[in-house]
């Protein structure tokens, strides 16, 4: 009833009725989708920024923004207005092409991944047959932007930040990838819509409780590390490297890094939701007595399920962010190469055996 896929079909049929030329219809639809995604991206970033500021304030016995709009709700909009009009400083002795390109690469990487998320039944930008592979691949582009930013700024702090980030992202990419691969073994497909459809009866985390749960935890840790947020915020470790790799950026260029950081948090939570928690699928109990319950659950629209799960995971990530102190670089790498990586490899084996047996 509240599903949005009908709206999508409605728009398509109206357009197709009104305009006869097929390519024009397609073009208009592409533009609409693009604009829609951009808007969603921006709005989500604003919501996430507010959410983080409010939640961290409550963790710290504070109130958070209260004075801009009711309960401070439009605080991020004020920030956006400010940051859009802030001067962009041109710095001498930088590699200026790379310096300018870097924030775009970072935001592009995160936006391209964003486009492949399945927000609800039938609401997604693209649905490749290798969707999951595409997401892993394209989300790693961001690290290039960070490395470029650190290098091009011609500043020792940014360089250290960039090097840390390179080491960190490349390492954690591995266990994140293997954790997802574990689930691909279970689902037998890389296409996101198929992965999600496979969870209609029960989410994957319940289908293979032990290996899926281990993979889920590993993915949460590794994904959290990939977003560069505490306790893994070494690349921008505020108390050590002033502002890390984006020390020299001002105005909207800095805004891009800022947005991408928040959206990456959303994307990681989104992937975890799709692969482990059934994406937009409602919570179902696979038993006869629970039919009424299942119907009620199914009544809640799919997009609400998706966003509900994603924000639940984001809350978890914020909780970790605002509780733990920062790791040191050697501890960070030790955690990945000596703990997470062997466990995830063993877990992959376990999952293969599990799939063979059950």
């Amino acid at each position, binding site marked *: 009833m509240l599903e949005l896929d009908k709206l999508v079909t409605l728009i398509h049929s109206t357009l197709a009725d009104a305009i006869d030329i097929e390519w024009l219809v397609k073009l208009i639809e592409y533009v609409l989708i693009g604009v829609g995604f951009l808007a969603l991206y921006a709005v989500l970033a604003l919501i996430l920024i507010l959410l983080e500021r409010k939640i961290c304030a409550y963790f*710290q016995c504070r109130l958070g923004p209260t004075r801009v709009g009711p309960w401070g709700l439009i605080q991020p909009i004020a920030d956006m207005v400010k940051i859009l009009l802030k001067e962009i400083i041109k710095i001498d002795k930088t590699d200026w092409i790379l310096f300018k390109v870097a924030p775009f690469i970072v935001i592009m990487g995160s936006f391209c991944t964003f486009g492949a998320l399945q927000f609800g039944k039938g609401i997604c930008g693209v649905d490749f047959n290798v969707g999951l592979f595409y997401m892993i691949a394209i989300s790693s582009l961001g690290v290039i932007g960070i490395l470029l930013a650190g290098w091009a700024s011609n500043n020792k702090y940014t360089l250290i930040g960039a090097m840390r980030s390179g080491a960190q992202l490349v390492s954690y990419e591995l266990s994140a990838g293997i954790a997802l691969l574990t689930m691909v073994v279970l689902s037998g497909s890389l296409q996101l819509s198929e992965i999600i459809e496979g969870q209609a009866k029960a989410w994957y985390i319940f289908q293979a409780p032990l290996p899926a749960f281990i993979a889920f935890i590993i993915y949460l840790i590794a994904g959290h590390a990939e977003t560069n947020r505490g*306790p893994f*915020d070494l690349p921008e470790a505020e*108390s050590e490297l002033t502002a890390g790799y984006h020390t020299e950026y001002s105005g909207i260029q800095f805004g891009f890094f800022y947005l991408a950081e928040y959206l990456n948090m959303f994307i990681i939570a989104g992937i975890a939701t799709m692969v482990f928690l059934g994406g937009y699928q409602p919570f179902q109990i696979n038993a006869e007595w629970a039919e009424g319950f299942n119907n009620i659950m199914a009544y809640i629209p799919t997009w609400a399920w998706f966003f509900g799960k994603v924000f639940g995971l984001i809350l978890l990530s914020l909780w970790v962010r*605002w509780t733990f102190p*920062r790791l040191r670089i050697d501890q960070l790498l030790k955690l990945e190469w000596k703990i997470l990586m062997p466990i995830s490899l063993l877990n992959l084996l376990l999952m293969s055996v599990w799939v063979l047996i059950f």
Partner: protein
Amino acid sequence: MDNMQKYIQTLAPKAQFEEGGQYLTTTIEPDALRKVATGLKEKGFDYLMCLTGMDYKESLGVIYHISSSNPKEKETVIVLKTSTTNREEPAIPTVSDIWEIATYYEREAYDFYGIIFVNHPDMRRLFLREDWVGFPFRKDYVVNDEINPVPTKVPDPDDYEAVPSYSLNKEGKLVKKTKSLFENKDYIVNIGPQHPSTHGVLHLRTKLEGEIIKHIDPHFGYIHRGIEKMCESMTYPQMLYLTERLDYLCGTMNRHGLCMCIEKAAGIEVPARAQYIRTIFDELTRIASHLIGWACMCNDMGSITAFIYGMRDREKIMDIYEETAGGRLMVNYYVVGGVAQDIHPNFVNRVKEFIPYMRKMIEEYHTLFTHNPIAAGRMKDCGFLTKEQAVALGVTGPSGRASGWSCDVRKIAPYAAYDKVKFDEMLHQGGGTFDRYMIRLEEIEQSLRIIEQLIDNIPEGDCRAKVPAIIKLPAGEYYQRVENARGDFGVYINSTGDKNPYRVKFRSPCLSLVTALDPMCTEQKIADLIMISGSLDYVIPCIDR
């Protein structure tokens, strides 16, 4: 003490001894200085407490306050004095190889008085810029903004690195040699002067290899306000207000030190009520200071929530201050002869409410941070300072006690009401970051214990002794130590009997803490440097004065 006097006499036959002073005071020739210093070090006087440059108008001199790290009796301090009449090229042999901390103290004396320490390895200025003209603490120095204008340019990094040193040639003339501190290919990162975690404007030139620190060269003076020089033109009560701004986190304790020094010199008897109130206030300040120290250390390690928790609980102490004294950070409560006004009627109740609250909160800190695996993993096995190093560098206070050095002035030379209360001097043997972290939280508990014993027993009576309107100290030298939240804080006053002091010197415990950074952080990572400096909990304005 008599045998020490004989011992010095054998080392330096020309030594002159002063009678009736607070400590055993000896004046010796510069030539005999190194012999006496080495002899004293052998006799166990391994802690150079304070080194003061002096301008006696006709001569320039240095005063050494030397103590032992392991005193057999109560407090053993020997004062050595030496001077030279040559004002153009005053040369005094260095003792930096005997007491390590003298490396920095002698640089300070050079900076203020232009006294050249022969064979000192690093004769740069400590506080002022290299292009500063003149030596501001000399009595004939004239403040002139045309000679020393507000600089407009940040100096070239190379200027920091030319290290001069002086030695005597065969004819007895000074020869200057210059060498470079770093090489061209070294990767040097400037941490500071404006950096979020240097706890003030400290400038650390750090040589890195990847993430690993190879050498740290600290630069001070970005907040050098010349407080000691200003004191020379102030009356004694006026000076009190500057002491709180030295180390603002233990303002009351510093002020306590100066008050006691003046009271001792002027022979003013402080009423018992004031002594009790002062002790309670000192301990409250210690708690507040340790809370900020804990909070900032957590913040340096990336845990912002812990930072806010510490600041939240500190506000309770600020409330107590405000009710009685009216001030928050600058309490401005102690005056010569007692305290400014009596305590507020609510004071006792509020303090009593605070004690159980604070105990509960320490439990929370342990849950939130101490038992956190990441925090514990980072703090353990990192940033060690041995007891020998601590003594050589004069690292006192919680950081010295974490290395196993029993250096609590409240125990060694009790003052105010400290001899009437029972408390433990917290000692750890490890000397690591975790020891320094824990010792602060343990000291908060001890402070609560002290307050608990005193709060119900504040005697009735005056809170302020009768003090003449104009305080004049009899001619002489006075030294007073107090234990502030960072260590052994000392006040040295040299009076000529006037209403202004002739020379004032504050012994800052924080300078030693910063100098300890280099031995502790070498071969550690940058992240550790930030954490270790958080665990040392220094306050830069206290160093720069």
